[in-house]
């Protein structure tokens, strides 16, 4: 058990004194290999006897339908998008992540609000305003930032799932074609992650290396966390 901290006021109507579980976040831009690493971490932690939840991965039941519809219609303007995603994040945090932490789970979260802030700012949001929205957010026990560069991302996507409209920032038309738009957009996102790194205490891991090498680094970080915060 350890003390619970928030980035701002948290949930004043529902004070949480302690949480038994641990919240581990994997951050990083699109196509950096987060989901692969989460699978590996999950298997390893379960082998070690920890109960693991990767509940943070999915859209919340509250906003899933509405957000998909809005995205398909491309009807979201930046301000509205920023608040809609914040609603989605808050629902997952309050109804999935925190209950799992209360029950003593290790929660592996594929991204946290840092990604949302990065996307908001690249779309013109004021950086302070974007951060202030997340005053309710719980401070994770560990945030691992999977650092990459645009060239490595391009290589992964070309050999993987290809270029996605939203991941390429086509809603803000960074360029007249999806490839150039992807390069510009992801470059801007990486810039935002770098800015947040010190501020939010990210632990950076070079994600351009082979899967196993990255995984070994992640394991070392998680082990270090368990030693610092014994249960």
């Amino acid at each position, binding site marked *: 058990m350890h003390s619970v901290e928030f980035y*701002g*006021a948290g*949930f*004043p*109507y*529902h004070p949480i004194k302690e949480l038994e579980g641990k919240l581990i976040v994997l951050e990083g831009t699109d196509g950096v290999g987060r989901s692969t690493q989460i699978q590996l971490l999950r298997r390893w932690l379960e082998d070690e006897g920890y109960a693991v939840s990767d509940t943070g991965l999915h859209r919340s*039941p*509250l*906003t899933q*339908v*509405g*957000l998909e*519809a*809005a995205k398909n219609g491309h*009807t*979201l*303007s930046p*301000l*509205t998008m*920023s*608040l*809609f995603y*914040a*609603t989605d994040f*808050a*629902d997952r945090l*309050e*109804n999935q992540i925190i209950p799992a932490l209360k029950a003593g789970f290790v929660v592996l979260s594929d991204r946290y609000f840092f990604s949302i802030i990065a996307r908001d700012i690249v779309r013109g949001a004021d950086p302070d*305003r974007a951060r*202030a*929205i997340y*005053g*309710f957010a719980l401070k994770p026990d560990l945030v691992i930032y999977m650092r990459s560069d645009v060239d490595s991302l391009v290589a992964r996507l070309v050999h993987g799932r290809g270029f996605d409209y939203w991941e390429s920032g086509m809603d803000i038309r960074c360029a007249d074609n999806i490839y150039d738009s992807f390069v510009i957009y992801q470059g801007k996102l990486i810039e935002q992650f770098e800015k947040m790194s010190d501020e939010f205490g990210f632990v950076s891991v070079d994600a351009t290396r082979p899967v196993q090498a990255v995984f070994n680094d992640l394991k070392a970080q998680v082990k270090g966390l368990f030693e610092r915060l014994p249960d």
Partner: protein
Amino acid sequence: MLSTGNYKGKLIVVEGIDGSGKSTQIDLLHKWLLSKGHSVYFSEWNSSDLVKSTSRMAKEKKMFTPTTFSLMTATDFADRWERYIFPLLKAGGIVLADRYAFTAFARDVARGVDPQWVRSLYSFAPMPDLTLYFRVPLDVAVDRILSSRAKIKYYEAGMDLGLSDNKVTSFRLFQQRVIDEYEKMVDEFGMTVLDGTESVQKEQKIVRQLVTKMLRGWEGLPNPLVRTRRRTAVFN
């Protein structure tokens, strides 16, 4: 907390608890301003098509927490703001808003969220040119609501707060909290206070006087239909 507006138009807001008479007043004001030849746009709280389905489902299934309720409401407002309110103000129209950010500040804080946090969600929204707050005693408002409506809804009554199992009791307790928040905001946001127990006609007279004073010397976007008639009159 709220930004200063950069637009030619005028933003007029009515605030107050349910049953304070504000919607009746803004409706009369709307018709009057149209008859005066102004370009007027009316916007209602929680009316964005974008979030309607999500919001309805969440209310039916009682999925909201105070935080998600607050964020969903802000999303609804942001959508209306970006799509209609802001462009119309820039064009020089008069925008009438039945409830504004202050409603969120009152209700969401009454639900228990942090006052500064909810204010930060609306920091993009400008201070209105005129904010009319319809002050009314709780009993008067509750009587009006109970006699005019079939039933009070779950979130309207603040049932999610577990204040009481009885809907009417819960509604009263919740609305009192909302009133307390409004009263704190009168000075903070320079609201003009109106007596919500006055007769509709007497109150409308005051509303029109306040609006006339605010619009004095201002030239907004004329209503093209009305302008045509005026020109005809001049040439005759």
